[in-house]
């Protein structure tokens, strides 16, 4: 208790009389290289951080903390993790406190991405909590001189048949939980769940609806100052001249920071920083180059770039051949994450140590990149995740964290808050990559797909940190870091080829991935990665082929779908929607259907939709959508429903309205006027989400499973309503109108 205050987890955890724990991560990591022998793999992220006390801590006073290396992004998993830990430990929901991603406190779980949080971290906490409960029972058995089988747990205590009771706080002893997890856990019977599987209200919402401090944007550290960055006007622009003397004299201005092409200003108050930023931008002279491709010819731009080609799936049955053939090309433009709150971070450089509060999706990789940029050792850089505005992938979060760190280093001792301006977020975020798919298939005499060919052209879908060169600030500083060479993300999850392999069974099939290394625009991961466009393409084409076969779209899918859980969601969505073969919609309306299993290994999702198209204006409006989803065992049904509703709305916006625009030099979609997204007049009348729960089954990530099916379902409904097939995203009013008039 008399130890000096050092931000060290060992001290933090020992404070207040906690009987455990020495942080095990160091030891856990040290073991990474040791041979695992024949031991079966530990579940979820226990495989990378096997010690139970990396995940759970119990204090002597009974307080329980669960640790996750994942970041809450508004998906609500913090609540879900709390439910899981409370359920498996047999304590009330309120007894658990969840600590999220922090390089000093939590395990290194990489990025919070790819719908992996439940699968990785949720599974780790599930198993760790179950095993901790067993340890506590064993400990109580020893103390009471009773057999473990005779003991039960309830409300944070182990209870003997004679009524004797030992609380968890009484039972924890030094290092009790500092043991490696077993590969198998004694999980509770789902039928007995009191907390998991129930719609527990989210823990973060009360603060968010009352003006509490809820986001990194809301942080106000003592002595904190505000900074703004002046970004170059375009990619690769060089700062040739900048007389900042007048800016430095502006009210409240503390410092102008310049390092090569990196330019920023620090002021006492936020609006002073903005005014100074505007003055500095006016004083800066840049040399720009005309490097951007033709926005209206992305099909040829992408397919014309050199690519590494690989056949990622092949199947052949020469005995089956098609009779009628169809070919189609689908395109997707660059699209923006478009977070409502521009990216923000707070950094504090003191005593040669850097602390950054950030809404990054990966505190560890981002720390590595920032440390490299600052030429500091990662040990003296700490990243703490604090919620930001929803990000939907790799937006400006990591870049603004780097901006803040670079600026804070120039003003040691003062916490510096940096938020991007709207125009900066829109122009500089790494976009969701443009993509092209070409499909060709034939139908046999029995109305089945005999032969399927699918080719996709795409950049990588991740330029996330790890390397300093991924950060804008590091790219712009005088001793610049080069952008690391892009790599395709490996299958089975894939990047540009995510969901390129159909889940349907075809006698002959071939799927080719054309990986394009050159990146004309700055791109990275956006919700669903390649799955959004690949599922849009596959599921649009399935409808086209159903038409060719004269079959009902739902029945046609089922004809080719063997996966029983896939069939279940398709049938459920169709039934709840009231899907009937040959059902005629009212004039101007159409019905659409689509299905996918995200990454072919996460959650299943089928969506039926009804769309109205105004033939005068071309305006399409989603009237209603019915989704069926199977994400394995459900922890929080309302949280899952919220995610799917959001996925449908967001994908609808991408699909109907959104494309990044640019001229030969600059990004020109720089705000909500030039990059319009959905507003309330486009909101459907209703969205219904039906969950197929699978108690006892593994968690399947669900945060991205709706993006692809929603897009194709809407496109199919538009085709149904108009008789015209649109294959180029977005399906704008003008494109629909032109197709109707053609």
């Amino acid at each position: 208790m008399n130890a000096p205050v050092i931000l060290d987890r060992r001290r933090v955890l020992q404070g207040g009389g906690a009987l455990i724990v020495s942080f095990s991560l160091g030891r856990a990591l040290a073991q990474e290289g040791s041979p695992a022998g024949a031991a079966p793999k530990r579940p979820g992220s226990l495989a990378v951080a096997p010690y139970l006390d990396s995940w759970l801590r119990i204090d002597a006073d009974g307080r329980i903390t669960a640790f996750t290396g994942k970041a809450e992004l508004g998906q609500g998993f913090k609540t879900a993790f709390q439910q899981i830990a409370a359920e498996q430990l047999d304590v009330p929901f309120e007894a658990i406190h969840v600590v999220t991603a922090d390089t000093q406190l939590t395990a290194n779980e990489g990025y919070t991405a790819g719908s992996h949080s439940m699968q990785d971290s949720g599974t780790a906490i599930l198993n760790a909590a179950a095993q901790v409960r067993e340890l506590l029972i064993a400990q109580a058995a020893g103390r009471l001189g009773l057999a473990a089988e005779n003991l039960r747990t309830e409300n944070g205590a182990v209870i003997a048949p004679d009524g004797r009771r030992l609380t968890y706080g009484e039972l924890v002893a030094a290092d009790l939980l500092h043991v490696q997890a077993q590969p198998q856990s004694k999980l509770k019977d789902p039928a007995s769940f009191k907390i998991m599987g129930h719609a527990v209200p989210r823990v973060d919402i009360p603060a968010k609806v009352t003006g509490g401090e809820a986001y990194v944007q809301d942080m106000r550290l003592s002595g904190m100052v505000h900074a703004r960055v002046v970004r170059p006007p375009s990619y690769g622009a060089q700062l040739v001249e900048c007389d900042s003397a007048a800016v430095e004299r502006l009210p409240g201005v503390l410092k102008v920071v310049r390092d090569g092409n990196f330019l920023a200003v620090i002021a006492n108050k936020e609006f002073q920083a903005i005014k100074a930023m505007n003055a500095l931008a006016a004083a800066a002279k840049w040399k720009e180059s005309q490097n951007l491709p033709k926005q209206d010819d992305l099909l040829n731009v992408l397919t014309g770039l050199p690519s590494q080609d690989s056949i990622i799936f092949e199947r052949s049955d020469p005995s089956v051949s098609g009779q009628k053939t169809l070919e189609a090309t689908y395109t997707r433009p660059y699209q923006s994450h478009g977070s409502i709150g521009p990216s923000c971070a707070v950094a504090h450089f003191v005593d040669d140590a850097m602390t950054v509060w950030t809404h990054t999706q990966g505190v560890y990789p981002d720390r590595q990149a920032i440390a490299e940029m600052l030429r500091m050792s990662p040990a003296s850089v700490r990243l703490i995740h604090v919620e930001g505005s929803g990000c939907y992938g790799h937006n400006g979060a990591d870049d603004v964290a780097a901006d803040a760190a670079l600026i804070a280093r120039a003003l040691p001792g003062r916490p510096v808050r940096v938020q991007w301006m709207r125009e900066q977020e829109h122009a500089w975020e790494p976009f969701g990559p443009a993509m092209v798919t070409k499909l060709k298939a034939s139908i046999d005499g029995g109305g089945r797909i005999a032969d399927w060919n699918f080719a996709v052209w795409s950049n990588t879908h991740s330029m996330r940190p790890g390397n300093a060169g991924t950060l804008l600030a590091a790219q712009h500083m005088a001793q610049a870091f080069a952008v690391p060479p892009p790599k395709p993300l490996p299958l089975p999850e894939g990047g540009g080829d995510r969901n390129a392999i159909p889940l349907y069974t075809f006698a002959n099939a071939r799927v080719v991935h054309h990986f394009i290394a050159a990146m004309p625009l700055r791109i990275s991961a956006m919700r669903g990665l390649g799955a959004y466009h690949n599922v849009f393409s596959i599921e649009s084409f399935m409808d086209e082929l159903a038409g060719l076969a004269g079959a009902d779209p739902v029945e046609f899918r089922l004809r080719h779908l063997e996966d029983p859980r896939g069939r279940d969601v398709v049938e459920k969505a169709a039934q709840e929607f009231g899907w009937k073969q040959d059902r005629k919609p009212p004039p101007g309306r159409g019905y659409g259907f689509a299905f996918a299993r995200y990454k072919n290994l996460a959650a299943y999702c089928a969506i039926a939709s009804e769309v109205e198209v105004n033939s005068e204006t071309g305006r399409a409006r989603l009237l209603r959508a019915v989704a069926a989803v199977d994400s394995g065992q459900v922890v929080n049904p309302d949280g899952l429903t919220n995610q799917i509703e959001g996925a449908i709305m967001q994908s609808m916006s991408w699909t109907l309205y959104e494309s990044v625009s640019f001229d030969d030099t600059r990004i020109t979609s720089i705000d909500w006027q030039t990059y319009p997204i959905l507003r309330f007049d486009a909101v459907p009348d209703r969205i219904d989400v039906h969950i197929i729960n699978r108690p006892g089954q593994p968690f399947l990530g669900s945060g991205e499973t709706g993006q692809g099916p929603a897009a194709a379902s809407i496109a199919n409904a538009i085709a149904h309503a108009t008789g015209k097939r649109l294959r180029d995203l977005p399906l704008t009013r003008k494109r629909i109108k032109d197709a109707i008039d053609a």
Partner: protein
Amino acid sequence: MMTLKVNGQDNQIDADPDTPLLYVLRDDLKLNAAKFGCGLGQCGSCTVIVDGKAVLSCVTPLVLLKGKQVTTLEGLGTVSAPAPIQRAFMEEQAAQCGYCIAGMMMRAQALLLRNPKPTDAEIRAELQPNLCRCGTHMRILRAVHRAARLMDTADASANARSGQ
């Protein structure tokens, strides 16, 4: 120095008269709810109520607020004593990231003040200036309907108590 009335309290503000209200609220008064989203009047995340009307605080300079009453989400209620609109958003779990939500609530509150029983179409039309990127729209609409009902019952019971 200028006096600015926020959530019923007078505050002495030392900021340039052209400073948008948003920065005064966040920076000088340390209020969290009004959010910077665009600074351009395009997204609504900075919405507050001025003299009963929804106003975009990012494009409203301080100098225009002399003698006016500013209300932010903090002025409506607290976690332990939430206003009907806050209760409604909690009960409907109407947030994903929640960044847009304070602005949505303030615009909805302004609507309910002048039209306690809005139709669904009226709510949608009113919320048109406000963007949500997470796609929480269906829940936001449900929450506003619920808030209208909650306010109605609150009024009814207040009336009953006062013997009307």
